[in-house]
């Protein structure tokens, strides 16, 4: 249910940047390590965008795979289901480099006729 306030924030950000224009598309970037679900955001979106300048706007979800860098051997790799350990040297000393993203990347608005 935390997707409801999140979707409200997405709507606020989009409306802020549209300056009254009709919004047709919203591009979201979501890292795989966050617990946000595309379908739930879409579900709330259809309800709360009603009656705003963003009604009917299409949501595009770009998923970022989780990645980490090994501090022992220096290699970077995609984190798989099995976990975080470096698949090259087995080290425990690793740092997450991608997968925690959660932002509105861009929006498309309709050309305003002068």
């Amino acid at each position, binding site marked *: 249910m*935390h997707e409801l306030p999140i979707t409200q924030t*997405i709507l606020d950000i989009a409306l802020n940047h549209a300056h009254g224009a009709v919004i047709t598309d919203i591009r979201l970037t979501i890292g795989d390590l966050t617990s946000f679900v595309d379908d739930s955001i879409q579900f709330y979106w259809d309800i709360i965008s009603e009656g705003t300048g963003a009604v009917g706007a299409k949501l595009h979800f770009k998923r970022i795979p989780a990645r980490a860098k090994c501090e022992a051997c220096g290699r970077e790799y995609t984190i798989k289901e099995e976990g*975080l350990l470096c698949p090259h040297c087995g080290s*425990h000393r690793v740092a997450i480099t991608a997968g925690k993203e959660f*932002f509105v990347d861009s929006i498309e608005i309709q050309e305003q006729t002068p």
Partner: protein
Amino acid sequence: MTHIPVVQNILNANDIIAEVNRNKLESAHVFGLNIMASPGAGKTSLIEHTIRGLSGVRVGIINGDTAGYDGDALRAQNAGATAVHINTGGNCHLEAHMIQDALVYLDLPALDLVIIENVGNLVCPAGWKLGTHHNVLVASIPEGADKPYKYPSMYHGVDVLVINKIDLLPYIPFDMDYFKKGVMALNPKVTVFEVSCQTGQGLDAWYDWVRGKIYR
């Protein structure tokens, strides 16, 4: 069609307020812990023991619950702490603004330690910073050894793991090696304590760790 770049963090508002909370704690020299776990893992039991075990340390507790029931806050009060209860109104996790509101009710300069008991949930609280210094996860033996594999975002995001209810190990099948393998794979740097809030076993090491953080 006009393209407008935005690149704005959706959790920005929460992160900003978390930072405000952190500053508030630090300017009063208070150390903050955010305790997360599934329902019934023993969050309140660990908090009660910690309040009693850290004699001389002045503790404030913030309890988040999805309803108006404030029994956990009362348990903390009976153990000797100042406690504030937050009713999240059904929300499945605490957010930084709720902590900001609750901190108003705590006399921070008169405290050394603030412990937040998050809503019992192994998924949602992980994504929301509150402004505390460390995230602590309480796991418990009856939950089963497969939990790190099923709730990776919670297990990988915490600094400390307290494995509670080890007094039940003789009675419940629990593959500790399998459990720890999952934990290490997700979170190799995590600090682990094995305790029982029933018998008191292992709690001294936990008290020492907390004490070490307070008197930095």
